[in-house]
C-alpha cells in the first residue's frame, strides 16, 4: 500500500514539470550561483578597487604604492580608465573623492606631501605629521577595513629598510642611550602602557579609540559618501528587497491572464471591444501601479521606522520607482505570456526571480561578488534598479544623473512588452 502511495506521488511529480524544476533544478542553480560568488575560486575572487593619489612623489610613497599594486586582492588605480582612447590624468585628492562619491571605487588613499620624510609613525598620528587619508564609501563595510589592514602589511613588507631607519630615528629621539634619564623615560612609557591596558579593561574610550595605535603607518579615514546618514544600509535593502518582491508581485498579477485564459473569461473579454493590445496594456498598468505602490510603502516604512532620508529624495524616488515598476510590470507580462498554465507560472517565476535576485544584488551587495558576476548582474532588472535607488538615497545624486538606469529600465520594459505582445498572439485567435 505504501509502495502504491509512493508510486502515485512519483508519477505526479514526474508529470509536474514545475515541481520537478523546483525540486532539482532550483537547488542546483542556487548552489552554483553561491558557489561562484563565495566558493573562493582563485580566478574569481573579488578584488577591492582602490584609488591612489600620490601627492608626495617620494621614494617611500612610490614603494608603498608598488607594494599595494602587488597585492592580489587589490585593484589599484592611479588614474581613471581612458576615455575614447585618451589617457586621463592621475587622480587628485578632489577627483578621487568625487570618484568614490560616484561609486567608481569604495576607497581612495591620499598620500600627502611630506609623507616620505616620516612615513612610519608607530601608532602616533600627530597633528604636525602628514598622515595618509583614507576616503571611503561606508556602504561598503568590507573594503575600507581590508585596505587599512593591507596598508599596514605593505608598510612592513615593502619598506623594511625605511622602517629600520625610522626605528633608529625614534631610538635617537626618545632613548639617546640608556642613561638614568632613558630608564626614567622607558619606565614612564611602560607606566603609560599599563594605564592604557587598565583603561582598555574598564572599557574607557579615550585616546585608546585611536585606530592607528600600534600600527606602523598612521591613517585618518573619512566617509565621503553617506557621512550624514543615520542608517547606511537601509536604502540599499529597501531597494534590494523591494525589487525582488516587486518581481514576485508582478508575476503573480500577470498570472491573472492565465487564470482568465483557463476560465474562458479571456475569450469573452476579447469578444468584446477589448483588443489583445488593450488588454495587455491594462494588465501592464495594473502590474506597474501595484509595483509602484509596493515601493512607496516599502520606502515610507523605511523612512518612518529606520529613519531613511525619504522626503528630500522624493523626486528621484518617483523617477526610479516608476521606471522600475514599468520594467517589473512588463517582466510579469512576459512570464505570464510564456507560460501555458498558472501551474507552470509558479515554479518558473520562482526560478527566474530568485536567480535574478541573487545575481542582481537583491540578496547581497553586488560589490561583494566576483567581477564576472557583477557584470552578469547587469543583465537583471534588480541591478539597475538598486543602482538607481543607491544613487538617489545613498549618493544624493540629482535626478539628472539617473538617466542610465532609467534608460535601461524603460528600454527593458519596452522590449519585454514587445515580447509579451508577440507571445500573447496565441490567445487572440485559434
Amino acid at each position, binding site marked *: 500500500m505504501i509502495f502504491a502511495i509512493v508510486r502515485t506521488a512519483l508519477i505526479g511529480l514526474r508529470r509536474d514539470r514545475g515541481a520537478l524544476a523546483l525540486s532539482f533544478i532550483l537547488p542546483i542553480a542556487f548552489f552554483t550561483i553561491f558557489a561562484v560568488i563565495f566558493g573562493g575560486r582563485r580566478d574569481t575572487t573579488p578584488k577591492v578597487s582602490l584609488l591612489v593619489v600620490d601627492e608626495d612623489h617620494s621614494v617611500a610613497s612610490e614603494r608603498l604604492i608598488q607594494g599595494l599594486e602587488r597585492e592580489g586582492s587589490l585593484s589599484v588605480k592611479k588614474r581613471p580608465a581612458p576615455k575614447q582612447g585618451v589617457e586621463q590624468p592621475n587622480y587628485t585628492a578632489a577627483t578621487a573623492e568625487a570618484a568614490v562619491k560616484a561609486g567608481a571605487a569604495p576607497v581612495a588613499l591620499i598620500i600627502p606631501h611630506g609623507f616620505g620624510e616620516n612615513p612610519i609613525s608607530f601608532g602616533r598620528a600627530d597633528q604636525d605629521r602628514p598622515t595618509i587619508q583614507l576616503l571611503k564609501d561606508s556602504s561598503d563595510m568590507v573594503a575600507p577595513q581590508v585596505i587599512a589592514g593591507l596598508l599596514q602589511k605593505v608598510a612592513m613588507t615593502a619598506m623594511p629598510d625605511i622602517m629600520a631607519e625610522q626605528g633608529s630615528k625614534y631610538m635617537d629621539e626618545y632613548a639617546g642611550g640608556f642613561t638614568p634619564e632613558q630608564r626614567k623615560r622607558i619606565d614612564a612609557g611602560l607606566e603609560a602602557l599599563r594605564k592604557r591596558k587598565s583603561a582598555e579593561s574598564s572599557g574607557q574610550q579615550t585616546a585608546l579609540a585611536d585606530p592607528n595605535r600600534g600600527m606602523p603607518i598612521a591613517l585618518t579615514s573619512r566617509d565621503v559618501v553617506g557621512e550624514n546618514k543615520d542608517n547606511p544600509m537601509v536604502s540599499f535593502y529597501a531597494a534590494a528587497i523591494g525589487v525582488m518582491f516587486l518581481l514576485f508581485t508582478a508575476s503573480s498579477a500577470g498570472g491573472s491572464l492565465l487564470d482568465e485564459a483557463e*476560465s*474562458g*473569461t479571456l*475569450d*469573452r*473579454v*476579447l*469578444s*468584446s*471591444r*477589448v483588443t489583445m493590445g488593450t488588454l495587455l496594456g491594462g494588465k501592464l498598468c495594473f502590474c506597474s501601479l501595484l509595483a509602484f505602490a509596493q515601493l512607496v510603502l516599502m520606502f515610507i516604512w523605511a523612512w518612518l521606522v529606520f529613519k531613511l532620508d525619504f522626503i528630500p529624495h522624493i523626486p528621484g524616488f518617483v523617477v526610479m520607482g516608476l521606471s522600475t515598476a514599468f520594467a517589473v510590470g512588463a517582466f510579469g507580462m512576459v512570464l505570464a505570456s510564456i507560460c501555458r498554465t498558472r501551474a507552470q507560472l509558479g515554479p518558473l517565476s520562482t526560478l527566474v526571480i530568485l536567480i535574478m535576485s541573487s545575481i542582481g544584488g537583491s540578496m547581497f551587495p553586488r560589490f561583494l561578488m566576483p567581477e564576472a558576476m557583477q557584470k552578469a548582474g547587469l543583465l537583471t532588472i534588480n541591478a539597475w534598479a538598486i543602482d538607481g535607488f543607491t544613487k538617489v538615497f545613498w549618493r544624493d545624486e540629482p535626478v539628472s544623473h539617473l538617466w542610465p538606469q532609467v534608460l535601461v529600465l524603460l528600454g527593458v520594459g519596452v522590449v519585454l512588452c514587445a515580447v509579451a505582445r508577440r507571445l500573447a498572439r496565441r490567445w487572440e*485567435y*485559434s
Partner: protein
Amino acid sequence: MASAPVVSIPSPLLLLPLRIEGLVKRFGELTAVNGVTLELKSGECLGLLGPNGAGKSTLIRSIVGRVIPDAGTVSVFGERADSAGARMALGWVPQELALYPKLTCRENLESFGEYHGLRRGALKTAVAWCLAWAALTDRAQEPVKNLSGGMKRRLNMAAGLIHRPKLILMDEPTVGVDPQSRNRIFEMIENLRDEGISMIYTTHYMEEAERLCDRIAIIDHGRIIALGTRDELVRNAFASRSEVLARFASADDSVAAWVKQRGGLYENGMAQFTIDHATEIAGLLDAATKAGHELADISLRKPNLESVFLHLTGRELRD
C-alpha cells in the same frame, strides 16, 4: 446634366442577423467544422443540436470571431465576424463560466459592460436590467464564488447580454444545471425570444431544442446533416412512419446482426425499427421468435429528434 445621387440600399441578404457560407475549420488532422452554410432569420431561434465534439462550439467561436476559419465567410448583420460592428451586435454566452469569481455580480456586469463601451447611465441601466432578467437583483453584491451553480449560469448568460445585442449565441447554457434552474433559464430565453432577439442555441439535449428553437440544425462531425423545424426534420426522416423500440433478453452479436438484417438499428442493447403501420409489429415479433431471440420489452412511439439523429447518424445523441 448632373447625375442623380446614388443611394446605397443594403441588400436584404446583408441584413440577415447571421450568414455563414462554406465555413471550414481544421485543427491539425481534425476538421472541426466542415463546410457549414447557414442563415439565421431575424427574430429566429436556431438550435444547433449535436453530440459532444460535433463542432458546435467551434462554429459558435467562429461566429464570435475567436476562431479564424480556414475557408468560408461569416457575416453578422452584413459585417465581418470579427469586426467592431459585429462585436457590438453579438452577445456570446460561452459554455464555460467566464466570470471573475472574486467580483460581485454587479461588478462583473459592470466590467463586461465597460468592455463593450457602456458608460455611466447606460451602464447602470444595463446592469440593472441584466440583474433583473437573471433574477439576481437581491444577490447583486454577492461575490460570484459564493453563488450556486444555477445562479452562476444565469449571471454568465446576463454578462453576455449586458450590451443588449441583437444576436445572441448561447453555447450549452444549461450544462451542469439542476432541473429547477434549467426551467428558470428556459424562461429567461423565452423572454428574449418574445423581445424578438435572434438567437443561436447549442445543446445536446433534444428536449431543449424542441422547446426553445424555431428551427434546428443537426450537426455531426462538423457538418450540418439536417436543418428545419422539428416537424420537418421528423417528417423528412420518417414521413408518417412510427418507431418500434425493442429490447431482447440477450444482447449478443447475433441479435445485432439479426436487427441489421431486418433493416433496423441496434445501439446499446436497444433495437429500433421503422414501420408504416402498427400491424407490422406482429410480423416483427414472429420473425424474432423464429430467429430464436427472446423479446424482453417492446414499445411503439412517434419519432422525435433523438430518433432523427439516430436515423441520420446511426449513433445516439449523447454518445
